[in-house]
């Protein structure tokens, strides 16, 4: 029996697992698939847009969180308070520095207090929009549009997931100096069928990246910085980045594009390696399908065991002192729904704040600035990240929840996906450590 049983290996689940394991708990992680890290940009978005101001990016996210307290008391950030969010981000930054995949902010690298001025970065996206992000891996930092250097965006002929002319044109339309250039894809690969992961692996080979760096040097004008698709090495990324910048003689940055996300995979691999070293198992392919519980009856109930299934084995029962639901809501597959408008949480059947009626789920336009209500709801929790009922009472004394499954925020719309995952995962981990110590 483990102390903590985590369902979901996204950023929130792994952050909680790390926090608990570091405090000496025995932790097991199961996950149906790999989390949204593998699809997202690999940055730490804390608060890019507030529900109040969806057209202009937030400048100082930690301050914006404080301002949410009145308007959105149910927002997970508000439940935690901006100080806790900051502490969690500090933990994360320190961890990533230790793991050799340093994250920094608008102020540079290092412990959070020194690494950021408190401002959001504005990083060029793969269509040339500016994405607000609070922290980014070092490979993306030189893309910050607060920096003065003109941009050279370099793509590879025939690469289907990156369009440098589009990026440059949109940046130019927004008043920045940017131009585009192409290099032959054969610099990276001779394979006919390849995705961004294969291409990143190609740059794990030093000979290839030195050749690429030489080509970049030829293209770049003095004073330019160079933006490339986010595929600069997978397992040997730090060296790849250093080699490329040195060979090109210019600052280099990555622009994340369509999934699979190479920056996200680096993050996942780094966290997984750290957890393994602490003896934490991650079982991929195990899907939480149900739980046995003692229902709340005046006092909080208890989770007895969780059941998981794979396609190949009979359901397994897992018992632990504490359970964490980190299944990521709709995106992660933690909620399912049907044509009658029923929507449910798949492991514990926890109550959701999403209305049980399809006609209340959507607004007319895909890009409605206010987002779609169905994506704003989820599992309601208290300040200790424990799921609560409509009356605010804790449902199960030994159950916590974190990440995309939580109610009260639309993390994609508000650009807060990773910030929420890190802060709530860390806070849940802390709360579990405290609870088990009693």
């Amino acid at each position, binding site marked *: 029996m483990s102390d903590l049983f985590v369902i979901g290996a996204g950023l929130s689940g792994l952050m909680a697992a790390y926090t608990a394991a570091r405090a000496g708990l025995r932790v097991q992680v199961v996950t149906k698939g790999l989390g*949204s890290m593998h*699809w*997202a940009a690999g940055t730490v978005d804390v608060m890019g847009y507030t529900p109040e101001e969806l057209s202009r990016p937030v400048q100082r996210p930690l301050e914006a969180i404080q301002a949410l307290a009145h308007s959105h008391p149910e927002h997970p950030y508000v439940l935690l308070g901006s100080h806790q969010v900051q502490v969690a981000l500090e933990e994360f930054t320190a961890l990533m520095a230790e793991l050799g995949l340093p994250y920094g902010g608008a102020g540079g690298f290092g412990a959070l207090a020194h690494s950021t001025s408190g401002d959001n970065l504005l990083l060029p*996206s*793969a*269509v040339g*929009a*500016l*994405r607000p992000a609070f922290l980014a891996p070092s490979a993306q930092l030189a893309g910050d549009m607060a920096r003065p250097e003109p941009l*050279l965006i370099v793509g590879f*002929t*025939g690469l*289907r997931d990156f*369009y440098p*002319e*589009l990026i440059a*044109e*949109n940046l*130019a*339309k*927004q*008043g920045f*100096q*940017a*131009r*585009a250039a*192409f290099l*032959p894809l*054969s610099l990276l690969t*001779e*394979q*006919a*069928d*390849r995705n961004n992961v294969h291409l990143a692996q190609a740059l794990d080979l030093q000979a290839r990246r030195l050749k690429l760096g030489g*080509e970049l040097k*030829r293209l770049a004008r003095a004073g330019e910085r160079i933006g490339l698709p986010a595929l600069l090495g997978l397992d040997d990324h730090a060296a790849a980045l250093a080699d490329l910048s040195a060979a090109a003689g210019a600052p280099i940055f990555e622009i994340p594009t*369509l*999934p699979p*996300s190479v920056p996200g995979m680096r993050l996942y691999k780094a966290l997984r390696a750290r957890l393994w070293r602490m003896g934490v198992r991650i079982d991929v392919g195990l899907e939480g399908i149900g739980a046995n519980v003692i229902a709340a009856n005046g006092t909080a109930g208890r989770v007895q065991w969780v059941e998981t299934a794979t396609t190949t084995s009979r359901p397994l029962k897992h018992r632990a002192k504490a359970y964490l639901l980190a299944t990521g809501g*709709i*995106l992660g597959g933690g909620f*399912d*729904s*049907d*044509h009658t408008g029923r*929507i449910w949480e798949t492991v514990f059947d926890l109550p959701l704040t999403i209305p049980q009626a*399809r*006609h209340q*789920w*959507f*607004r*007319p*336009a*895909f*890009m409605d600035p206010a987002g779609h209500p169905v*994506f704003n709801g989820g599992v309601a929790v208290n300040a200790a990240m424990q799921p609560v009922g409509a009356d605010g009472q804790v449902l199960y004394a030994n159950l916590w929840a974190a990440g995309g499954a939580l109610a009260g925020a639309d993390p*994609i*719309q508000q*650009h807060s*996906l990773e910030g929420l995952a890190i802060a709530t995962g860390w806070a849940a981990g802390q709360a579990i450590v405290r609870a088990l110590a009693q």
Partner: protein
Amino acid sequence: MKRIETEILVVGGGATGTGIAWDAALRGFKVTLIEKRDLTHGTTGRYHGLLHSGGRYVVKDPVSATECIHENRILRKTHAHCIENTSGFFAVTPEDEGPYPDKFLEGCRATGVDCAEISVADALRREPLLNPRISRVFEVPDGTADSFLATHATVQAARHAGAQILTYHELMGLIIEGGDGNRRVVGAKVRDVAKGMDVEIRAQMVINATGAWAGMVTQMAGVAISVVPGKGVMVAMNHRALNTVVNRCKMPADGDIIVPVHTVAIIGTTDERVTDPENLRIEPWEVNLMLEEGDKLVPNLSKARVVRAWAGVRPLYQEDYAGASRDATRKFALLDHKERHGIDGFITITGGKWTTFRLMAEKTVDLAASHLGARKPCVTATTAVPGADQGNYWLGHRLHEIEEQKLQGQLICECELVTRAMLENAAKQNPLLTLDDLRRDVRLGMGPCQGGFCTYRAVGIIHEMGKAGVWEGDAGHQTHAAEEWDVAYIQSPARNVNGSGSVGDRPQQQGGSVGDRPQQQGGSVGDRPQQQGGSVGDRPQQQGDRPQQQGDRPQQRAGQTPPLFNPNLLLRDFLQERWKGVAPILWGRQLKQERLDELIYLNVMNADHLPDDQLASAMTDFYLFDTTPNEHEVHP
């Protein structure tokens, strides 16, 4: 103002109008066809996909049944590559017992629809997912048909015969001469929607083939006719649960057919009177009904992932309309306005079915010829359209070609197996206003992810093509350029490897920088470094060396025609267009998929914060029509 002179002006670019243009051109008439949006914008692009055997009508409408089987046999030859030879079952489920099955058999005999009763065991062997509780099964020569491809093919045949086809040209008014009892339509006021220009087209005969819009067009001549728009909703399941068309063996009703088309199985349809043929809601009760009815033929089909829902309107013509619209006749109506209303030079054709479009066209041109003076006889029944030599469509054809030619690296839409060269050729040759036009051409974005991955890629590729000067001058809307386009192989990955000339036509120094011809891939492109890296970057004047301030945005506002191919507008329009068809069916795995599409476009790309957000295309408002569910889960 631009002026065009022609003999016959056909209004409407659906199956019927294009069939007329083809037939009339083959008979030696000078023909111009106008369609207000892209080809198949109307019902033809929103139908069920069934090549009727006639079985559906043998009891209720025997004349239609005979027409269908007659045309079914012809189209299998003339439009072979647009048709999949699926065969069809009429299955008696526990709910359908009674006298109908015997009447059905008798009706098939009387109308000439080939029909054979097969054993239930045989039927289940062929279609294992079929409801095992069915008691009888009849087999008929139903098929399925790709109306996008078929219309393209018909249009290409018409062009080869000399017809002029103008898409994004909307009829705004008819030019009428003469007084009471002696009036004559002599031409039309037309709006070039893409360019925002007026065009006057003079013709000796105007043929109104606008389907469910037909009444609006006759109004322009002051004539009121009754075309009842009967809306039908269809739901596409991600699983092609059946390889055979399966009909319930009963009087035609809602949700009683499942049609396998390409990779999906489509359940349909409903029949609701509506007033507007253009903006069609898809109500939750209609979707729920389709799923419930579908389960009766294939148990648990409703649990499968739903890809999309859409609606079309039946142009049901009634002289004296009364009652529910499914009872109106499905035979077509050919109206000679000279005889009926004393207006010469004006014919309306409406109603019918996709399956009978060729026959409708033949009768229409016969009538036109009786006024204009006959030329050659009709030959469409024996003339194959370009591409028919490929034989019938089969499900694996794209995959087969992709694998044989090793084109996997060229795929820009993995769901529907669209290669970059297919997209480039279609984009270059077809007058293009939105990515939705390309969707109809090559099936871009029609798979499970509904544009999640290919939207970005298509926008990027088209933008690169634009930078490379592919549309320099007027070519983007140069509809005549399409005359050179070989649509016969538009859907074939293997046949687009050489770009049908389109890629090679580019200015030489551009070849490598944008081109993606497979044989130039990998090594060979890189072997021409002088054409490579730098070729674009060395043209700083095209890029950011001229920073524009945010305030310099084009002054377009909603409703105005934007400059061609604004990439940000292409992207927004297509994402919204795809949303329109998924919003009615978002739950379960498709809801998860939509959330991933949001993650990509709203978060990783941040595409909702791009410049040019004031721009609108001729289609923007159409895509913005609200199709999200309302509260009616059952028929109100």
